[in-house]
């Protein structure tokens, strides 16, 4: 089980002929992910690592009976690539690409909502359901099958925590990277909702960072829904100086949210155990699961 991706996921890789695209296709195949096709406009007809390459998603989807896509296309063209996937009926789209303009991301997410498409990212390490499917760029050896659902805004910090959970024999149901950009598809609340419904997930680790108010909203959600599974969190950025101000409008929209302190307080008030440093998450989780 786990959420969003599993052994029935059949993925296409958009931007498969680039350095990152081809490298990670290889690693995903080695992990056992069913990569059924790739796209690269103008390069249709060849094969990379045994995967057939098409010019368009339309052809790739048909050829591989795909139900998910992972995008490595450069920032200026990534939103268009995601729209191509959506328009061809793909319902799970992972966008690895970083530096996508906010305006493009806003337009994309609005359309994804209309079409009920699940977008992960942009600027995400992707998603992994250990033992079943990796749709991303994370080093796979640090993960292990188990009952901890992980959701994070960060890449390498997620690896840090996942590796320490695995060392403590706390395996993961699914590990989901929301993406580090201001505008992303899925958010903490979406992930909490899905983990709540997933029978394999026994506890949730939430890794947030300064900026925005997604952690505060997650805290409110945990209270409002009387969330049933234990949640442990880490928030990066306690030591960060006050961020560069985004004008009056930014301050008005966000209110007091955004600082590590505000996020930590909101989560603690919601009954979430918040770790002082990444290395403490595993211990808090082990204690939570016992009580």
């Amino acid at each position, binding site marked *: 089980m786990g959420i969003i991706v599993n052994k029935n996921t059949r993925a296409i890789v958009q931007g498969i002929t680039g350095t*990152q695209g081809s490298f990670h296709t290889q690693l995903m195949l080695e992990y056992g992910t069913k990569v059924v096709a790739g796209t690269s406009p103008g390069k249709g007809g060849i094969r990379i690592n045994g995967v057939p390459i098409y010019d368009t998603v339309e052809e790739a989807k048909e050829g591989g009976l795909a139900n998910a896509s992972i995008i490595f296309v450069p920032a200026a063209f990534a939103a268009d690539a995601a729209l191509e996937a959506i328009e061809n009926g793909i319902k799970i789209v992972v966008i690895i690409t970083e530096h996508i303009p906010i305006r493009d991301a806003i337009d994309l*997410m609005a359309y994804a909502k209309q079409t009920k498409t699940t977008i992960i990212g942009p600027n995400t390490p992707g998603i992994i359901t250990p033992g079943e499917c990796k749709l991303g760029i994370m080093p796979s050896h640090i993960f292990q099958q188990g009952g901890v659902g992980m959701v994070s805004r960060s890449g390498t910090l997620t690896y840090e925590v996942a590796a320490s959970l695995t060392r403590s024999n706390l395996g993961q149901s699914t590990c989901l990277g929301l993406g580090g950009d*201001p505008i992303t598809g899925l958010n903490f609340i979406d992930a909490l909702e899905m983990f709540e419904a997933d029978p394999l997930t026994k506890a949730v680790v939430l890794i947030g960072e300064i900026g925005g108010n997604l952690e505060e909203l997650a805290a409110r959600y945990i209270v409002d829904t009387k969330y049933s599974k234990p949640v442990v969190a880490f928030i990066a950025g306690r030591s960060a100086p006050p961020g560069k101000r985004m004008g*009056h409008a930014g301050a008005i929209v966000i209110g007091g949210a955004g600082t590590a302190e505000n996020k930590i307080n909101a989560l603690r008030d919601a009954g979430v155990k918040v770790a002082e440093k990444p290395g403490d998450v595993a211990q808090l989780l082990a204690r939570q699961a016992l009580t």
Partner: protein
Amino acid sequence: MVNAVKLFEYEAKTLLAKHGIPTPQGGLATSAAQATEVAARLKPPFAVKAQVLVAGRGKAGGILFTNNVEETERAASKLLSMHIKGIPVRSIWIEEKIQIKKELYFGITADRSQQSYVAVASAVGGVEIEETAKKTPEKVMKVSVKPELGLRPFQTRQIAKKMGYTSNRISELASIFGQLYNVGMNYDAELVEMNPLVETNDGKFMAADARMIIDDNALFRHPELKKRLLEGESELTPQELEAMKNDLAYVKLDGDIGVIGNGAGLVMATLDTIQYYGGRPANFLDVGGGAPSEKIALSLKIVLSDPKIKTLFINILGGITRCDEVAKGILEAKEKAGVAKPMVIRLVGTNEEEGKRMLTDAGIHVLESMDEAAQRVIEITRGGN
């Protein structure tokens, strides 16, 4: 970390004026002589405004009012020799002073939680707008902009009406709001605001001050702004600028432990961990994903250019980043730049064995745990006192 591109007041006003938003007549000067030329073309009295990107300019004495050309020359000399919050004033904007009847506020910004742009408006504008929003939130309107619709004329008319305007003033004001939204979208602004947007004594609306912050990820659509960012003046220190040109995220802090890592979250957590154990980080530097050895070497150079640094903590968790490339970069920097400061290196992940071997062969000790490495670097930093 995002290095948003802030525009100077005069740049923002020029863009607003191009889109048909009324702004006071004015001109730019970089010397007192030039200021007199500008003033001679305008109608007195004047507002003489330092062009700096830091907030709180007015309170710091960066805006002066003058009645004639001579006074303007003196005001210009004064401002051009000033530093505002440590930033030297390099240019000033001289404009016709407007007779203010009422100060309004109107801005557009991206709203993460709504995943849309949002228009923020108030009939009580001015420097206290954030206080107003906190104390009397009912006086500040927030109107979400549906991405598929944009900000529509009926919405801007509603805002104008709620601000208390009637008859043809409604569409006059609404059209200014609509134009500001267009400026924001055309230039990929993360923020564009008029504060104050002024109602003058003779019943006109005018953007008396304007701020604009551009999404740096969209600079490929605005080559003229990218050029200005890299060549022109900005808030960034030379190190921050060099880092940005090389796609490294660097923020200077005021401690004595230099920090290099990969991934913004991990680097932030590294700073937090150092602070947790009682140390003081000197900077934030994220080399990003998959950094080749040259980028690692350059990162060392940038971080070590801060004279306050006593020790260096390199924390790498290799996913796309390969540990052998990191090791190569460290050795390159050590050889070329003669890095003499003590280093603590935590290196795990892709090609970890190879990276460790390279460093150990060169006599550099490598640790595996972030907690242990943080404690070690603080110990060395203290020992060096």
